[in-house]
């Protein structure tokens, strides 16, 4: 799993490439990344999942966790480019309402204004 970040105005965009799974430690990597961004004072976060092929249950748990962490620290984490596969998973687990998710990064960014 690869994590890239860039600023778009005052919004931090985190781009994930690869699987978010327990086996590859991706779940913990992602958590640490978001934690450190929050600590650096980034409160508006967009998680671009366009490059994510597979999320396992541990990865899903971690997504919910970082969403809650951001919220608890006065921030907001929004998802962009959620693949169909992940959307199906969110629907089955009925977690779809937990997240603010957008079809594109542009829409996710616009949602902050």
């Amino acid at each position, binding site marked *: 799993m690869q994590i890239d970040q860039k600023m778009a105005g005052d919004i931090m965009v985190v781009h994930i490439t690869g699987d978010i799974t327990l086996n590859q430690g991706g779940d913990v990597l992602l958590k640490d990344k978001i934690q450190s961004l929050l600590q650096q004072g980034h409160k508006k976060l967009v998680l671009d999942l366009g490059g994510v092929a597979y999320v396992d*249950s*541990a990865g899903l748990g971690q997504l*919910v*966790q970082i969403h809650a962490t951001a919220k608890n620290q006065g921030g907001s984490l929004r998802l962009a480019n959620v693949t169909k596969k992940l959307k199906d998973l969110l629907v*089955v*687990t*009925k977690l779809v309402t*937990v997240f603010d998710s957008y079809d594109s990064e542009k829409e996710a960014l616009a949602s902050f204004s």
Partner: protein
Amino acid sequence: MDARLQVTDSNGRRVVPVDKAIFLIGRRTAADLQLVNADVSREHAEIARDGMRYLLRDRGSRYGTFVNGEQVTERALEHGDRIRLGRTDAIELVFMTEASASTHASGLREIGSDADLRQMAAILNGLRALGSGRVLEDVLTLVLDSALDVTKADRGFIMLARADGELEFKTARGRGRITLPGTSFNTSSKIPREVFQTGESRIVGDLMDGNLAGMHEGTIAIGIRHVLCVPLSVHPMAASPDQGIAARVIGVLYLDGRERSTILSQATRSSLEAFATQAALAIESARLYAEAAEKARIERDLLVAAQIQQALLPAGSYETAFADLAAASVPCRTVGGDFFDYIDLGARGFGFGLGDVAGKGAPAALLAAAVQSNFIAQAPVSADPADTLTRVNNALLRRAIEARFATMFHGVIALDGRLSYSNGGQEPPLVLGRSQTSWLETGGPVLGLLPGATYEYDTVTLSPGDLVVICSDGVTEARNFAGEEFGRERLIEVTEGLHGAKPDMVLERLFEAVRKFSQGTAQGDDITGLVLRYRGNPT
């Protein structure tokens, strides 16, 4: 050239000039050469200058004076003579008059090569013993004792790198083959870290020197001033000599002492580096051996855990007056994170559930046991399936483990065929009716993740022969060689025409289909299924 004595004792080696007409050797403070040893008398012997000669005289000592092993009362000394005071070799005196060892084959060089030979012998002993070491602690102790023998240092430590890259004291030994008590010691922390990082040995002649003193007050306070630290590096086997594979530093060997002794000599350093290479290999192999043994133990534990887990699951088939079921769970590792259970709820009917904990292996198995026991405890006291899931969710949140959750389906089938159910994020179960199929989707989010999550329940009415097929996602997400998933469509295909069939037969057919589908690929997840058949109201 002036006469002098080379003195080797517990304080190390030094050269003392014989610069008086009568040169007194003894234990008393006023002696020209004061030697502290039980065998040395207060006034033991003297060296008197007699023209060009030097005469050694015993002054009536208790334990005698010896020259080249022979007891003497008076003897004219020659260059290279060895003088022994008392019964032991604890103190060695060599009388010298000539300029350097190079003019004569005796004297200094002999002593030097003698010491080198002793070093080599100690190293060889150490290496021989290392080969037979299996227990890490034994190997570490052996390495240190040999290193102390070679260097005559006061203390020796082995620090090994932990997984996080920090050095950790493993063994501490003092001269005389004693283990130093405690887990942390007054040593430099900067020197070992530098040696560990650079892989280069370091000799520090005097901690009092320069900018090191401030950092080593604790060490200096106990009199330690001289340090020799060498890396313990493992050189991986290369396929060919020119194939460069970097050595891996696994820790450091750290020696220190109050006296300069031999710690600071270049010869000691090279011998010790050679020794450290062998020692590192021995340490690494002992460590791998210990790891393998530990792994075998964990595997045994897991096998027992797997037996316990199977025992926690109820029987794979059950029959009530109006319904029967079959269920099975095949973990992809030794233990799994899936579970199923069922319970008679009296007038409300017959309750059953199937769940799946996020993750695999032992962590998932522990959580699965907790979810299962919560479920079985809450189901009888709940008003309906949604109430049960709400209670289980709250119970799990009280002991929340970060980012760990479970999915679970829970249904209650009544005598008259009414099935009430709530689905907590579980792959929707299939209802196989006589002429149609449907999915049981009503419920709420996964369990153990969201405080205050709400769950709903729905009721459907089953006719005699209708089947409810519940699977964990290990079934629907099983992959074939081409990477395709088993999916819900195949679930329908496999169960087609099985309306009214015995649950164990349906379950067997399903598992067989999954096996065939994913042939040649490794099972990626725990596979669990439960099939319930409504048989009709017997009254």
